[in-house]
């Protein structure tokens, strides 16, 4: 087996098939990053997986999963003002959490520089929205590189690191889902390990680090704007601005990132191809390059994913330069929505110039089976918990979802969780719902990683303001949905053992008077606990605890222990009540044409949490 860790530490140049996220880690190493931080979130957890492949004692930089993105950014900031190149990375919506600190960065003298790797998610492949973070970056005066491929992700990171070190500033490398996860062969450069320099460089006199009143804020802001000007000069000469010259005087297209690749695939269907200008940076823009390109074409289409960010800038450039070029931007709401995958770009370009492309139909050719959305794993403790909680509530009661695997409880047949904003919102939202709502009980859910990430202020508020609701903490010991990263309750961090924070003690310390802990597999007890909790006045918490069974079965398998037994349905006893299939809904149960129920040997992990749900006791173990 090829060892990823060994490869990432090679001194000599090499090329290898890697995904974008892995290419970023080699770039971090070559660029001399000393401190990297993160909070898990798709599409970036694979960056941490690649870091984990390098043994701790050989890792050329410190890495931690922090409790949330804001803390991750702050740790990276602290390291940078002490002279170390740092690299926080997280998903799109992570920037919202980090925003309060993020907007200050460009005003600070970041001695060591900072490259922020942002995993945006056009298409909402695994996020609760598809926000366009280019707006936030511009608001904070932070330049943005936008790679289209793993190769560019690697190369642009190196450029960004150079600029960040040179100007003591933060720079964003904005990846999107299918840049992070795309795989291709990338040629990597030479790595010269440098000994770690522990000289303490933080000096409050180097920069001004205290923004307070105009007297300090103005000069600090001036510094940020001067840096943007310096990067603008770089952007103009950047090797990442490329043109595809089809000698077309009439039509040109300006584009960036992944949409460029979709465009190149689309243009293979066009007889008369427009010229293309692909940019490497979206903020600040290379003005002269753009103006020259526009001036040499009669019509220019701006092809960009999500919002009309560069379109507006380019239109104002055209105005300032008195250009007559016709600029074709976004046409309708659909152009603002969704990832610019090849078929989407095909349609957008067809809408722009109808004669450019032949008519094509991308719709399905025949009947399709119904969709197969993600669902809770076989044996998941969350399923058992939802089953038990549902029994304790009336159909009219209100349930508030939060983010994590347990969000899937909103799906049929559990339908637990009716409203969702973002990580950690549930207690706050539930508190608001409980006001003037005497008839309907309010039950909110939250996962344990999310509890530490953003859940505490809502809980403290519920105690402080005496809100009347029940919070169910779905404790499984891990950050499951993003790939099982440890969190402050796990007893381990990325680098080794640490003290686990006890959720129960923490809640008691916060003054939560009513806390019950029940194993999620003990359905009767859990139902009872919820009934009691919702009947109390005020704020109550029930901790429904059970280890993540996917993580558990994987660990067992690594130890050489496979699934030892599975359940089956006794045909004699089964009365076709279908509680297992239609109410408990472990995906293991399969409905046969003759109405009988069987269990799938592919799926059953043999935990037995289903056995208690069958009213006629038809489910039982079958020895393997």
């Amino acid at each position, binding site marked *: 087996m090829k060892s990823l860790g060994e490869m990432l530490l090679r001194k000599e140049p090499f090329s290898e098939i890697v995904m974008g996220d892995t290419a970023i880690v080699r770039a971090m190493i070559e660029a001399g990053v000393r401190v990297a931080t993160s909070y898990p979130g798709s599409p970036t957890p694979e960056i941490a997986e690649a870091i984990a492949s390098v043994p701790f004692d050989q890792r050329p930089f410190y890495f931690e999963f922090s409790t949330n993105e804001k803390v991750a950014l702050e740790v990276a900031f602290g390291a940078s003002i002490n002279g170390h190149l740092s690299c926080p990375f997280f998903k799109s919506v992570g920037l919202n959490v980090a925003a309060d600190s993020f907007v200050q960065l460009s005003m600070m003298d970041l001695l060591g520089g900072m490259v922020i790797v942002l995993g945006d998610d056009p298409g909402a492949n695994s996020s609760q929205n598809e926000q366009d973070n280019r707006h936030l970056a511009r608001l904070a005066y932070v330049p943005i590189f936008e790679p289209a491929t793993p190769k560019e992700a690697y190369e642009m990171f190196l450029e960004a690191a150079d600029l960040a070190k040179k100007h003591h500033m933060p720079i964003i490398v904005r990846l999107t889902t299918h840049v992070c996860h795309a795989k291709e062969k990338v040629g990597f450069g030479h790595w010269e390990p440098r000994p770690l320099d522990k000289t303490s460089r933080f000096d409050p006199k180097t920069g001004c680090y205290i923004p307070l009143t105009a007297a300090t804020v103005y000069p600090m802001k001036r510094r940020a704007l001067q840096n943007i000007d310096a990067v603008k000069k770089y952007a103009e000469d950047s090797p990442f601005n490329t043109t595809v010259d089809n000698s077309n005087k009439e039509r040109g297209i300006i584009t960036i990132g992944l949409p460029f690749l979709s465009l190149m695939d689309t243009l293979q269907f066009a007889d008369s191809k427009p010229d293309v200008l692909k940019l490497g940076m979206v903020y600040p823009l290379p003005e002269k390059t753009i103006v020259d390109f526009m001036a040499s074409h009669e019509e220019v289409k701006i092809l960009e994913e999500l919002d009309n960010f560069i379109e507006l800038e380019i239109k104002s450039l055209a105005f300032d330069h008195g250009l007559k070029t016709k600029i074709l931007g976004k046409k309708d709401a659909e152009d603002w929505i969704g990832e610019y995958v090849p078929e989407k770009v095909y349609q957008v370009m067809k809408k722009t110039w109808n004669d450019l492309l032949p008519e094509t139909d991308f719709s*399905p050719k025949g009947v399709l089976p119904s969709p197969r959305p993600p*669902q809770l794993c076989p044996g998941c403790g969350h399923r058992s918990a939802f089953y038990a909680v549902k029994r304790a509530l009336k159909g009219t009661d209100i349930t508030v979802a939060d983010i994590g695997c347990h969000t899937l409880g909103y799906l049929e047949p559990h339908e637990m969780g009716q409203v969702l904003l973002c990580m950690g919102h549930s207690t706050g939202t539930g508190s608001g719902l409980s006001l003037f709502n005497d008839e309907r009980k309010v039950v909110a859910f939250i996962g344990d990683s999310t509890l530490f990430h953003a859940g505490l202020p809502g809980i403290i508020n519920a105690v402080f303001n005496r809100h009347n609701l029940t919070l169910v903490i779905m404790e499984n010991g891990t950050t499951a949905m993003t790939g099982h990263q440890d969190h402050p309750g796990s007893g381990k961090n990325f680098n080794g053992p640490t003290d686990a924070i006890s959720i129960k003690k923490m809640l008691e310390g916060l003054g939560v008077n009513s806390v019950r802990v029940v194993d999620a597999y003990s359905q009767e007890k859990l139902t009872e606990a919820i009934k009691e909790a919702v009947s109390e006045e005020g704020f109550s918490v029930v901790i429904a605890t059970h280890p993540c069974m996917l993580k558990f079965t994987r660990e067992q398998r690594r130890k050489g222990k496979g699934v030892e037994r599975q359940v089956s349905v006794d045909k004699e006893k089964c009365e076709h009540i279908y509680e297992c299939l239609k109410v408990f809904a472990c995906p293991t149960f399969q409905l046969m044409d003759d109405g009988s129920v069987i269990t799938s040997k592919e799926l059953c992990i043999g935990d037995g949490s289903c056995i208690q749900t069958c009213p006629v006791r038809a489910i039982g173990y079958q020895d393997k």
Partner: protein
Amino acid sequence: MKLDIFVIGVGGQGIGLLSETIIRAADHAGLTVKGVDTHGLAQRGGMVTSHIRIGEDAFSPLIMPGLADMVLALEIHEALRGLNTYLRDKGTLVYYSVSLQTLNVRLGKEKSVTIDDISRECKMRSVKEYAVSREVPDPRMQNIAILGTLARERLIDSVEPRHYEMALEDLLSGKVLELNLNLFHSILAD
């Protein structure tokens, strides 16, 4: 050479290993290749897909719907989905015929997809069909049944069995590698 392969299955079936093996095998055979997994979330059981694009002219790692030359499916419902969303007419479908019912089938709202449904659809669209039902020692090795079929039938030009073996050796080690290679070899001999 140009070949676009769309891979589809259910989370947990080992689609990631299948597609990375093919990508690496193509590379070992000297072809230009890229691809992408549509990484689902951690949970098992949702639909997962992977795109593989062989050839110099492929820019995006993603294939356009209806234009894949080949669809590999690890499950029968997903085989029908892959066939009707991504495969072009006269393309090739290779699928493992295990059935993992969708929620609607389990709730009794919809009928299961059968081998006959797939065959009928393939005939209508002149698709070459390989239904694989070979027993494997462990359900998690159903992906190797597909890989073995690809190799035995030489479905990717210029990618030979040894290239798949080299790819498996890149990705696996020890007992797991041994088990997978053994199965691969026995399928080649089928």
